């Protein structure tokens, strides 16, 4: 299947989960990454059970925050 990851179309095996995609894409500090699939945010804790399908668009966003 083909999915678009951070703007780039890529081929992955069918049934790929969000957790597997994070590993395949070598995302740094994955605990602090928010994932959106087709502009819907994936709930933390469901990355292993969320399966991607052909044509999906995935974005990885780092949590950005701080103090003073």
């Amino acid at each position, binding site marked *: 299947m083909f999915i678009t990851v951070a703007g780039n179309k890529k081929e992955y095996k069918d049934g790929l989960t969000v957790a597997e995609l994070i590993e395949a894409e070598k995302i*740094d500090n994955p605990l602090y990454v928010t994932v959106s699939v087709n502009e819907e945010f994936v709930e933390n804790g469901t990355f292993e059970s969320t399966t991607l399908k052909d044509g999906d668009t995935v*974005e990885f*966003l780092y949590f*950005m925050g701080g103090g003073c």
Partner: protein
Amino acid sequence: MITISKDNYGKILAHAEKNLPEEACGLIAGRIDGENKHIEKVYLLTNIDHSNEHFSLDPKEQLAAIKDMRQNGLTPLGNWHSHPESPSRPSDEDKRLAYDSKASYLILSLQDRVKPVLNSFHIEGVDATNEGLVIE
């Protein structure tokens, strides 16, 4: 070195002053030329913490900004936030929450309202390096 235009600096400053006493925040995008970064667009986002001591970017606005950067051929360069009452340097919390070591972290101090100070930092773990921001 990292550069920002006076116009974009003015946008950050105006947004930060408008949001006082809360911290203000946003994203920066542009292009990378060797070891130099050039900020070509600044994004003014919502601090969903609505606090004068903390900030978190709104993820929905962050996603929209990333899409805009891509559509305009811009590279995500990092983020910016204001320190309403403290200097322009990363706090311990800023360092702890700097998860992207490739990003530039701009901090605008409004401690002295007459003389705001904007600096850019590279943060890796507990180490913060001033990147030498030039307003041109």
